[in-house]
């Protein structure tokens, strides 16, 4: 009926074609000018095909699965488009399409223009492997494409390999990724040992069949392993190191969908492989979510590197998603499938929404960084006049990420609040307090995010330019703007049209919890979003948007009646009698976040150093040096000791190294002989 399989394989083939074509272009001696555009068009085509495949897969209510056999035992190249995979694939293809459009304009102008062929090859490889990650249905196959994704991402992160910062970020990313994969391997093998098979289909509900201790260990290992990719606290340190240094379209993809691969893995493990989990598991996920959300946004507030700020916000939003997942697990443990479905929908919807607006923000930031050649917000300003479209799109993204109505961020946060609210009544006394506390901290997180984006948008775009580079900034080309426009429109549509998007979640919740949730969540002829019934609370983003526009007419009316004849002058800002305001009088990003830095000083441990130079007297200084830094808690208290421990262990082991190849070979040989003897006897 629906050509899902054809669309899906066509998409994969187009990506593969893109890789081949790009490598061919790379190998060709002269890079032609139309090559990046052509290759981006290829990835756009692939993304559109995958979009179609996922969309049709969500409509078809049966599971689609196809396999290629390999000669290796246990490994089967199985691909399965069940509703969960199709949903993530949908998100991926939407982001891939907009990034492709953006890249067509970006590649020719940025630092990657020296080798566009290689870049496009890696980009297509990343998209191809991500599509396979979301749809792979065999443990070994999954791990192969998982690692492939990590490798492709690594090369893209260090693409600007002349920068030491980029190399460091890439290395940290790679190291932590390998650690995560190691944990995944053990966790998966524990599960597979109980199921006797490596296929995902055989692992459904396997968590109940393991003995509780093993199930717990596997759960934690898989949570942590996928958490490394997703960027939960405390394994988040690679995110702010790697995302800023990558080329901006790659940062957008990484924050938008690559970390969601970790979320996909968690969703698969929590809801497919494990059915009902003990209460402590759901509570752990919820707590990790709350902590990640709060700490992510607090660290984001202290950043004045625009892209690092956005990277920390990704950590925050992953926390919000995990709050939804944790609540879903808890509701399932206590036997409330409806509420669990609501919480899961909240988490999954926020996954998509965050992907969309984070991608938009990164693309916007990319344009800004490209125009001003700096990532430092303290050197920007006044860009709204020079880059009006970028400013508008960035503003839309900022409003969305702050969870303000009527955009998509508000909708998914509304659902998360409703899920947390329902938790109080649905759980017994000891666990019930967790939900309102989580809700309160979610409110704090969202409010801090709004503060952070006032800072980000305000300092970057508004008022006067703080440096010459910002003064000479120019608007980005049309293709880059189009890429951003697609995402901005998606933000608005997902916010206003949430009621029409919700039926997408039905097959997912049907398969996992056995309830089709969307009829309960939509009311009033598709106008209202509810939390299970209109009696529990409802909101309508469409009506809010229309009402805002309508009510805005009142002051317009008043002005027409009364104020039309009055003057409207332009004048300088009040400058307290100084000879004219310059950019030095403006507020800085560091100053903006100072109150919060002081309030949360216990976390940040800010250090401030001021040195005054003077010649004649201290009252007439010639120069003042100001230095301020906050302590990176996790690096100093968790990772430094860990590193010291590993290094000390390694240096003790060094005595085993004789430096002679023959000695090493002898070690191996003796071990081999012993193994053979014992093996042959047994």
């Amino acid at each position, binding site marked *: 009926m629906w050509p899902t399989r054809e669309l899906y394989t066509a998409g994969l083939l187009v990506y593969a074609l893109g890789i081949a074509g790009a490598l061919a272009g790379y190998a060709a001696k002269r890079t032609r000018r139309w090559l990046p555009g052509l290759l981006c068009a290829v990835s756009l085509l692939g993304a559109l095909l995958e979009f179609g495949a996922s969309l049709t897969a969500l409509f078809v209510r049966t599971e689609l699965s196809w396999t290629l056999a390999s000669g290796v035992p246990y490994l089967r190249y199985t691909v399965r488009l069940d509703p969960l995979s199709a949903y993530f694939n949908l998100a991926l293809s939407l982001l891939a399409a907009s990034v492709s459009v953006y890249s067509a304009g970006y590649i020719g102008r940025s630092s990657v223009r020296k080798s566009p062929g290689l870049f496009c090859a890696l980009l297509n490889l990343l998209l191809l492997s991500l599509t396979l990650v979301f749809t792979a249905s065999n443990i070994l196959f999954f791990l192969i494409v998982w690692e492939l994704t990590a490798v492709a991402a690594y090369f893209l992160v260090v693409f600007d390999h002349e920068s030491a910062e980029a190399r460091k970020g890439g290395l940290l990313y790679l190291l932590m990724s390998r650690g995560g994969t190691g944990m995944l391997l053990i966790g998966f093998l524990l599960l597979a040992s109980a199921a006797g098979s490596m296929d995902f289909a055989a692992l459904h509900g396997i968590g109940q069949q393991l003995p509780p201790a093993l199930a717990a260990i596997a759960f934690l290992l898989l949570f942590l392993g996928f958490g490394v990719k997703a960027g939960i606290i405390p394994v988040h340190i690679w995110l702010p190191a790697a995302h800023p240094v990558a080329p901006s379209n790659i940062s957008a993809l990484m924050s938008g969908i690559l970390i969601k691969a970790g979320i996909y893995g968690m969703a698969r493990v929590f809801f497919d492989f494990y059915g009902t989990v003990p209460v402590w598991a759901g509570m752990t996920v919820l707590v990790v979510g709350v902590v990640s959300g709060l700490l992510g946004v607090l660290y984001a507030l202290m950043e004045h590197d625009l892209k690092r700020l956005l990277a920390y916000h990704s950590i925050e939003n992953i926390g919000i998603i995990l709050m939804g997942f944790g609540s879903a697990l808890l509701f399932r443990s206590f036997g409330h499938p409806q509420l669990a479905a609501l919480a899961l929908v909240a988490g999954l919807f926020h996954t998509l929404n965050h992907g969309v607006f984070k991608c938009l923000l990164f693309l916007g930031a990319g344009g800004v960084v490209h125009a001003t050649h700096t990532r430092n917000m303290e050197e920007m300003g006044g860009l709204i006049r020079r880059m009006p479209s970028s400013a508008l799109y960035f503003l839309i993204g900022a409003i969305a990420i702050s969870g303000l109505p009527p955009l998509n961020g508000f909708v998914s946060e509304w659902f998360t609040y409703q899920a947390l609210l329902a938790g109080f009544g649905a759980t017994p006394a000891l666990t019930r307090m967790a939900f309102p506390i989580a809700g309160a901290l979610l409110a704090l997180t969202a409010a801090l995010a709004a503060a952070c984006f006032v800072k980000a948008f305000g300092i970057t775009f*508004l008022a006067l330019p703080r440096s010459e580079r910002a003064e000479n900034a120019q608007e980005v080309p049309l293709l880059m703007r189009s890429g951003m426009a697609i995402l901005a429109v998606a933000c608005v549509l997902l916010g206003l049209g949430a009621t029409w998007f919700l039926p997408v979640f039905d097959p997912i919740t049907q398969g996992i919890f056995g309830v089709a949730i969307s009829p309960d969540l939509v009311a009033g002829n598709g106008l209202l979003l509810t*939390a299970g019934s209109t009696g529990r609370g409802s909101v309508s983003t469409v009506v809010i948007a229309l009402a805002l526009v309508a009510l805005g007419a009142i002051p317009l009316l008043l002005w027409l009646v009364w104020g039309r004849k009055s003057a409207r002058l332009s004048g300088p800002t009040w400058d307290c009698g100084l000879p004219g305001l310059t950019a030095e009088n403006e507020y800085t990003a560091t100053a903006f976040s100072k109150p919060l830095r002081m309030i949360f000083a216990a976390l940040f441990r800010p250090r401030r150093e001021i040195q005054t130079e003077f010649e004649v007297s201290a009252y007439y200084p010639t120069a003042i040096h100001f230095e301020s830094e906050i302590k990176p808690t996790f690096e100093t208290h968790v990772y430094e000791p860990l590193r010291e421990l590993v290094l000390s262990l390694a240096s003790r082991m060094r005595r085993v190294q004789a430096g002679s190849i023959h000695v090493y070979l002898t070690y191996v040989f003796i071990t081999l002989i012993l193994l053979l003897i014992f093996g042959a006897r047994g």
Partner: protein
Amino acid sequence: MMERILTVLAQIVLVLFLSPLITGFSRTWKARLQTRRGPGIFQPYRDLAKLLRKGMVIPDTASWVFGATPYVLFSTTLLAGLLIPTVSAQAPLSAFGGVLAVVYLLALGRFFLALGGLDTGSSFGGLGSSREMTISAIAEPALMLAVFTVAIGAGSTNLSTVAQAALGQSWRFLAPSQMLAFAALFIVLIAETGRIPVDNPATHLELTMIHEAMILEYSGPYLALIEWSAAMKQLVLMTLLVNVFIPFGLSAGWSAITVLSLILFVVKLLFLAATVVLMETTNAKLRLFRVPELLAVAFILSAMALISTFLF
């Protein structure tokens, strides 16, 4: 349908024209308590009328965000006003948004106001924006926890449902959880509307300004809209407080309202405003970094309110 439109219009008129009255009463009483005469109850109306007719000066560093802010602020606050029950327990648009929508609509207005402050390019604007966003962020947990307490008690975030549930049990205000939540929300009210001890609405010293700093560069009709929005926000939050916790006088539906319920509503508001004025006159403004302590107290109060819902 027609009835719905009429109720919407009635609520708009009520919110628009009652809010300056509350401000006027507050200022006059404060003056009287300080043994001054005060400007008179209807002065805010005169101020608004004057500002709407005056000319405007727009800073040359400003962009379209500066001009959009008064409109956004006005419409978000007014819409929030349409979502809360004032004279009748049935708010006109309450099906389209509950207490979460109210909180976040006010947050949207504040977002733009803060951006407007930064747009001017002066340090005052940045200062005001920074402090305002900080304080509202710190106030959020207490607000949300108190809101949760109320919503859990009524089983819904829809404010009409909450008010109707409150109507059904008149004396439950005296329950410990309700009183604690009321106290917490009272502190949050002070923080959000920018009154002493958090912020001084009458000062223009950079050491003490928060809200005033953000709107320093606004003049003429823009300033009128912003001042009106501030008054409306005060009305919205006060109404939330009185009608959810002390629902006396709320009529069940719009067709049943009488002059009595309107008078009772105004009286309740004035009582609350008087309490706020009393607090303002008897306390000094807190240093900025002491405000989180005050809001932490609010947080603890609302946490205790929540715990006491299932302890008592």
